């Protein structure tokens, strides 16, 4: 459905620059700690079109989360530059929505008070906040739990509340760091379906980090495979499965198997040590 576009290296071309929603140009990141230096990223180029859904898979510690933190402006690159919608990211980037794997709901606020936080920060009137919160609670299927505290919710419901809190201020770019990681398989499928539905409606640019190849193929327009650090892009795989997709059906699509094999091979280099 969506046109397959050129490889990440073409990010340097003028056209890609003009159209990119998010771009990393020659980004390197080295963390310095007491025990020494760790080079996580080196010369990374990456660009996303507006409305593109990109998934990143890779081994643990390969710098996937670092890329998201750089895009969010929570971290600064050691070298190179990060752009979001054409603007260099210098400070915390409030034009993005960042859904971390970490549970960051405020435990002393109810579900509706939590979802209202970004709007309160933007000094939006009470009646408008109430209306938008009600609307999003319906969209993520949390009706009846408005007055519950996070400690009274299941893991899946907390994820839904976090998703609602991220979507309510309508950021054009969404960063998602293994958002469904610790959930059971069935719940994961339900939330993936929910996410695809919301994404089709809002068409946001998404960078989605995951461990799960199937999840990456199910959701994304394009899947990047990161190598272990310092991170290089080992494979840039456009997904040829048409949208709208049915999360239960994707794995039976004829193209699925080929995608899965190629991603798996890229993820596990043949010369790997016996485990």
């Amino acid at each position, binding site marked *: 459905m969506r046109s397959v576009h050129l490889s990440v290296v073409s990010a340097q071309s003028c056209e890609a620059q003009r159209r990119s929603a998010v771009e990393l140009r020659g980004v390197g990141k080295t963390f310095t700690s007491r025990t020494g230096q760790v080079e996580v990223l080196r010369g990374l180029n990456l660009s996303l079109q507006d409305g593109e859904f990109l998934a990143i898979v890779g081994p643990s510690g390969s710098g996937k989360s670092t890329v998201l933190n750089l895009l969010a402006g*929570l971290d600064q690159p050691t070298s190179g530059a990060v752009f979001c919608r054409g603007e260099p990211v210098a400070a915390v980037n409030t034009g993005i929505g960042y859904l*971390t794997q970490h549970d*960051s709901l*405020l435990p002393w606020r109810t579900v509706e008070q939590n979802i209202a936080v970004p709007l309160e920060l933007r000094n939006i009137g009470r009646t408008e906040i109430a209306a938008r919160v009600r609307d999003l609670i319906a969209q993520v299927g949390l009706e009846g739990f408005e007055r519950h505290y996070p400690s009274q919710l299941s893991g899946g419901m907390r994820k839904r509340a976090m998703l609602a809190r991220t979507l309510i201020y309508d950021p054009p770019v969404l960063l998602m760091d293994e958002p469904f990681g610790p959930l059971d398989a069935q719940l994961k499928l339900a939330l993936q379906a929910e996410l695809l539905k919301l994404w089709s409606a809002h068409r946001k640019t998404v960078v989605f980090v995951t461990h799960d190849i199937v999840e990456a193929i199910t959701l994304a327009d394009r899947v990047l495979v990161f190598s272990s650090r310092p991170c290089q892009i080992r494979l840039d795989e456009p997904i040829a499965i048409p949208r709208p997709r049915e999360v239960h059906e994707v794995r039976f699509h004829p193209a699925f198997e080929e995608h899965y094999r190629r991603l798996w091979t890229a993820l596990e280099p043949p010369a790997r040590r016996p485990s």
Partner: protein
Amino acid sequence: MSTQALSETQAEPTLGLSGRVWLYRAIFVVVMLTAWQSASGTLLDPFWVSSPAAIFRTLVAWTASGQLGYHLLITFKETAAGFVLGATAGVLFALLVGANDTLHRTVDPFVTAIYGVPKVALAPLFIMWFGIGLAPKIVLAAISVFFLVFFSTLRGVREVDLKMVDALRTMGAGKFATQRMVIFPSALPWLFTGLKLGLPYGFVGAVAAEMMASNAGIGYLTQNSAGQLDTAGVFAALFALMVVTTLLNEALGRLESWIFRWR
């Protein structure tokens, strides 16, 4: 009373844990008071140890004359004023120091050093500075409360979940909004621990200053009774103070569980 307890036990075979604890507490009090009462005048000279009955008589007499209420109210006012001042300063200072790592590392040794000084040792100085009215008592109570609330709150501020702070920052929260929405609420349980620890120390500060120079308050009452070799009076004054601190601590506990109903 005992038959009622018995029938309750039968109606509900597992008498609630808190019910049992209350029963044991009552037994403990009765045993202690009986032992004290019977030892006084037989094993021990009542001149030194008084007796529960004599203390009770003193309390009744003081209550009737209005003396007890007057002195308790003075001590309560001093402590309350000191508590509010000390706790407010402690919280604000902790939020300020906790927000800035350089500031924290700079002031930390000084604060710890001053904390190590016994607050009561400062009472003569405050009496020299502020006279013998309410002021030196309030200041001493405030200083005693300040450090406990400060250290406790600072700990809470330092232990705030940084991922939560980052999440709020990406949603557009500035420094002040982060303090208000994340750091303060997440430090609140620690703050309360500080308040609950600080309250009795506030009374200690106020009473200690009263004992050194004053003409009113529970400290004065204790000192005055001791001066007249009235052991029952000393015990009665201390007992009254004990009741007030316990009730206030209980009230703080109730307030705490109401504030942290989200847990």
